């Protein structure tokens, strides 16, 4: 069955509307066509790089098992014993609870870029009108598709494609999600300068968003206090690497792990500049705590009162180190600086008029 029957795609290359034939899409303007594999449309223009916590072989194995025994069972067998916290992470739909801070109506159209296991897409498709789960990895999209079938979510559309070649027409979505994705864009896209790759992706996104739509961007902070304390960077596994000037970080990375440092994260100010350059305005910063992957709180860090109240009332130190850090943050006027050093950012931005 063609699940994309009522959906209008645009050509990922020339952006002209695509003709929907039975099991393929063709562009009359540039004579390209895109086929479907196992009922899922594949809009990849070049062969993209792969990113994932687990290798492609493992994913293929998972999918085979999921087809036989159901996706829950496959996940349980794979992760429940070996990595129980990751298992919970995949199943935990409350990870999408940040949607309460986005002023959306129920008939919103949502684009989840880099959907991974599809947890956010599934959670949001229970509430909003239409959710497109988009990923470069065909195996992950296949997994989302299995999840969609077993949960009967007809408003969830799994689409495989590349972030720099989005197959959607202009001003189509009310919300685009980049949840822990932007920092991986340079690795997956390859080639050009990491900053340019990220900026390009944001510009592409800007194109498919409506005028009063939102971008939700969740990403680590380059100046996270954890980086200053010498914790390992979650992307590269290198201590202090995000803090160094990019060229130095690159040399350090080549020496330590024999490849370039491409997992760029940014500071508060750098985010503002990059988003403005990509055509966004009305940028609001939040901090998901303890991390955007699984948060218990989201604090609007642009507001001093919220930061102060949070530090005073909602944080309990669990050890001496935390108690010291907290005392430091609470003291004097340091709470005004807290927003620059939070571990992660959740950013809401709207397209510039």
């Amino acid at each position: 069955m063609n699940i994309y029957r009522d959906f209008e795609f645009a050509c990922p290359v020339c952006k002209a509307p695509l003709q929907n034939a039975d099991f393929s899409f063709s562009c009359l303007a540039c004579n390209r066509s895109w086929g479907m594999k196992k009922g899922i449309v594949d809009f990849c223009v070049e062969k993209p790089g792969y990113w994932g916590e687990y290798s492609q072989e493992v994913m293929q194995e998972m999918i085979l098992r999921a087809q036989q025994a159901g996706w829950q069972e496959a996940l349980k067998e794979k992760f429940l014993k070996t990595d129980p916290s990751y298992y919970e992470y995949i199943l935990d739909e409350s990870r999408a609870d940040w949607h309460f801070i986005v002023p959306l109506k129920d008939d919103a159209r949502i684009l989840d870029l880099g959907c991974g296991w599809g947890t956010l897409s599934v959670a949001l498709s229970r509430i909003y009108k239409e959710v497109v789960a988009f990923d470069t990895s065909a195996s992950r999209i296949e997994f989302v598709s299995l999840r969609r079938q077993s949960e009967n979510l007809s408003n969830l559309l799994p689409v495989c494609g590349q972030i720099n070649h989005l197959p959607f027409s202009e001003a189509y979505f009310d919300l685009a999600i980049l949840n822990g994705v932007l920092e991986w864009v340079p690795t997956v896209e390859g080639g050009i300068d990491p900053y340019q790759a990220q900026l390009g992706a944001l510009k592409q996104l800007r194109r498919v968003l409506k005028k009063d739509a939102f971008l939700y961007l969740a990403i680590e902070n380059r100046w996270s206090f954890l980086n200053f304390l010498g914790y390992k960077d979650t992307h590269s596994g290198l201590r202090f690497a995000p803090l160094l000037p990019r060229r130095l970080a690159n040399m350090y990375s080549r020496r330590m792990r024999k490849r370039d440092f491409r997992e760029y994260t940014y500071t508060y100010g750098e985010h503002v500049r990059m988003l403005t350059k990509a055509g966004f305005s009305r940028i609001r910063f939040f901090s998901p705590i303890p991390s955007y992957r699984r948060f218990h709180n989201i604090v609007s860090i642009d507001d001093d009162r919220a930061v102060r109240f949070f530090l005073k009332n909602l944080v309990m130190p669990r050890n001496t180190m935390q108690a010291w850090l907290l005392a430091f943050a609470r003291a004097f006027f340091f709470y005004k600086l807290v927003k620059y050093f939070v571990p992660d950012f959740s950013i809401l931005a709207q397209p510039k008029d």
Partner: protein
Amino acid sequence: MFFTDDNKMNGYILHKNKDRITFFSFQENNNEPSSLVKVYDQSRKALLQEKLTFLQQVMLTCEEPLKDSIPKILDLVDAGRYCLIFEEYTGGSTMAELAQHKHLFWQKSFTAHLSLSSEWLAGFHKKTVQASVVIPADKIAFLFDKISSFIPKPFVSVAHNDVAIPLVSCHGDFRPANIVLKKGKVVVLDWDNMRRSGLPLLDLLEFILRYVHSRFRLQKKDVYLLPESFLAYFNLFYARESTLSAMVKDKINWYASSLGLAEREKNVLLLIWLYKMLYINEKDKFACFPEGLRELLV
């Protein structure tokens, strides 16, 4: 989703709890949140409404220290899949915060906080007393046996005949972080886990356990997870001879006598609490009279 008004987009905190989300929203020229918005699933609305009306009725006729000791509900609104409760922000500091700043003199603050909260609890429980439940002697003997496998030298002596215990309304999550001190007056927050009829004393024991846990953190594990870690705290404040346990026992006796509970009724309640914590805790963490226990005992 419901913060469509752009003014409200400025300062707020989203705080996730077990099955609800709380928003603290800040408005102009005010350093404290102006109100709380609690977001629940629509399916819980009927139950919540019933609880709130019951609580308001109870509180209407109360005198000090219970008067005005729960936060005011400003509004209850339907929003599609969700149900929103607008609540007044009480201000003040919770006992958990106060205890945090007084680590050196924590026993002093513990004594003060314990007497304030036990006073409040005794008042509330007296106000909501219901018919008694009879617990047969053989069930008590069964509990006794079960507990002896954890505590070799039983510290409670239980008479082997039926015991009648009055039921009361329970808060269900009576921990220091839910009790606010405002100008020396107690305000109790978070009534999500309230039960119309439960067993007395369990709320007070929960308070003591949580308080001692937050101070000592004997083990990294949560006090609820492992029987051993629970027992370590229980030894600290009750089973072992010390000034702390003497004080705690005093307070428990005072509470029991003010509710008119005799010695053996108190002991049976202690046994029930131990059984809940050691055997059925994970299943029904908050309930003051969990289903599993109800089936077993009555």
